[in-house]
């Protein structure tokens, strides 16, 4: 039997739109960390957007179709078994499509009809396994494996781990979670805590791990998003965190953008730094701040990381 460890050595990589744009540093740090850990990523050929949260509001089945096309290409054109997505939105949508195609005949019918017209193979549930970047490192390398490969340390950096909404909700699309020790929890996720902890960080007790940043209305109802983000930033600071670690481009840019907005528009400054967990892992693996794109973040943390002796 092949274990997750074997299976995750080489996976299809679905970066998604955000990682090609504003979240370039997440893309870059994910690939660099993969390299440093000896894990292979093969980008999904000619991929399309999964539909994010927006297409679902126009029509949920179209989103299922868009996500299924990505999985179909990975399965049939690339013969891959695993698709890894670092974006919560992409990860969520592929999981949701997987669930719908396994349980809802109408979705199967619509996806088949659209795929045939579009001229590519129809995705069938079970052809690939979709995982998040956190699963990829957690199960492909593990905490012990990570420790063996460390070249530096996060030096007791106090981190609040922020997972957002789409990584755990709704629960039914993540059948592998909540299965006891070793598996991820939907109420209190911990993979990011575990990995950063192994790299030398101190994880603070952070109650808003899965709170919502209002990303859906980041532009259409900005004041609401700013309030929600400010809540998260304040809670992290109150818990003693110096850094908020993120694992999704939308959550990350939401926090960065509304941290600025809270300060500029409402005169409510916060100091906590915002970094992708892959950037932090990369630094502990001996990569340079430039290699993991620290300079590309809006939240300016270079000076702080130097002071701490991490960068």
């Amino acid at each position, binding site marked *: 039997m092949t274990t997750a460890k074997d299976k995750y050595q080489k996976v299809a990589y679905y970066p998604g739109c*955000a990682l090609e744009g504003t979240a370039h540093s997440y893309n870059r740090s994910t690939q660099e960390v993969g390299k440093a850990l000896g894990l292979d990523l093969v980008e999904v050929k000619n991929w399309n*957007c999964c539909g994010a949260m927006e297409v679902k509001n126009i029509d949920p089945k179209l989103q299922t179709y868009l996500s299924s096309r990505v999985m179909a290409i990975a399965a049939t054109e690339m013969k891959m078994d695993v698709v890894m997505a670092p974006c919560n939105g992409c990860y969520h949508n592929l999981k949701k499509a997987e669930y719908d195609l396994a349980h809802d005949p109408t979705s199967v019918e619509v996806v088949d009809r659209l795929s045939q*017209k579009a001229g590519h193979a129809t995705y069938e549930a079970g052809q690939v396994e979709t995982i998040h970047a956190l699963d990829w490192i957690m199960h492909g390398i593990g905490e012990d494996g990570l420790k063996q490969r460390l070249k530096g340390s996060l030096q007791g950096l106090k981190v609040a781990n922020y997972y957002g909404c789409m990584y755990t909700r709704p629960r039914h699309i993540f059948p592998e979670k909540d299965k006891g020790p070793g598996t991820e929890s939907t109420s209190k996720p911990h993979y990011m805590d575990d990995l950063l902890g192994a790299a030398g960080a101190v994880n603070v007790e952070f109650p808003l791990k899965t709170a919502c940043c209002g990303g859906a209305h980041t532009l259409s109802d900005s004041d609401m998003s700013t309030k929600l983000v400010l809540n998260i930033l304040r809670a992290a600071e109150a818990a003693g965190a110096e850094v908020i670690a993120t694992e999704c481009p939308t959550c990350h840019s939401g926090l960065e953008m509304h941290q600025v907005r809270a300060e500029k528009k409402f005169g409510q400054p916060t100091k906590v730094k915002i970094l992708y967990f892959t950037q932090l892992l990369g630094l502990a693996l001996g990569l340079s701040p430039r290699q993991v794109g620290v300079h590309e973040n809006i939240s300016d943390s270079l000076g702080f990381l130097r002071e701490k002796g991490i960068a």
Partner: protein
Amino acid sequence: MPIHEQSLIRPENLTTHDQLVVDGVDVSGHWSTFIQSRVVTDYNEAMQDEIAALPGGENVHRCWQCGSCTNSCTVNAINPEFNPRHWIYLVRIGMESEILRDKDIIWQCVSCNKCTYACPRDVVPEGVMKALSHWLELKGHVKPSPSMVFDEVFSEQVFQHGKIEEGRVMQRFFKRTGQSLNQPWLIEMMRRMLRHLPVGMLTKLGLATLVAPRTSGWSGARAAIEEYVHEQEHKRRRALGLDALIEAAKRDAGPVTAGEGARS
């Protein structure tokens, strides 16, 4: 878990007389407070079916009013008027007029799915909020909310090209909602973003706003999606009886001849 209550007694239906003597008894002030009776006759008995016909609303009939959705709701914590449990109740009994009182805040649901996580009946309240927002718009009760405009701008790009480029989506959204890009916080954000970005990256971002990134060989998918979108729109309009309404309105307006406006 508490059921988040929503009083059905409105302040304007409470009457109190400052000076009132009834049968020789002085009941001035709060002693004379009474609730004016209210008879509701304008139920929309089809409302639950109409919501169930829209994507996301399919399970609305399952709700048993436990209140877990409102209790866990992200937006409710900020605005107590935002009450999914209450709206689902109104949908189920068909109190359309009562729902309309909240028509301008229903779209504010941030799709965090905390309600879906908490709901013991698999109602998917998040979906119901989307269906309800959609319904308000289709029935002409509200103009498309900023959020719906955003969904449209975004989806148009995905359907067209297979991929999106955030800068483009943002620009179009600001344009369509008539907002200025010249806002201090936006400028500050750009400034911070530009501070360290390598020149190559900047050119790439700049180019992306001019030349949209695309998925090659997308035309087949585009055609398939467009056809599907039309078909679904038609279905929804029929479920809400909108085409019949429009036909009836046209008939009432009488024949329209060229050179003459619809209104006289």
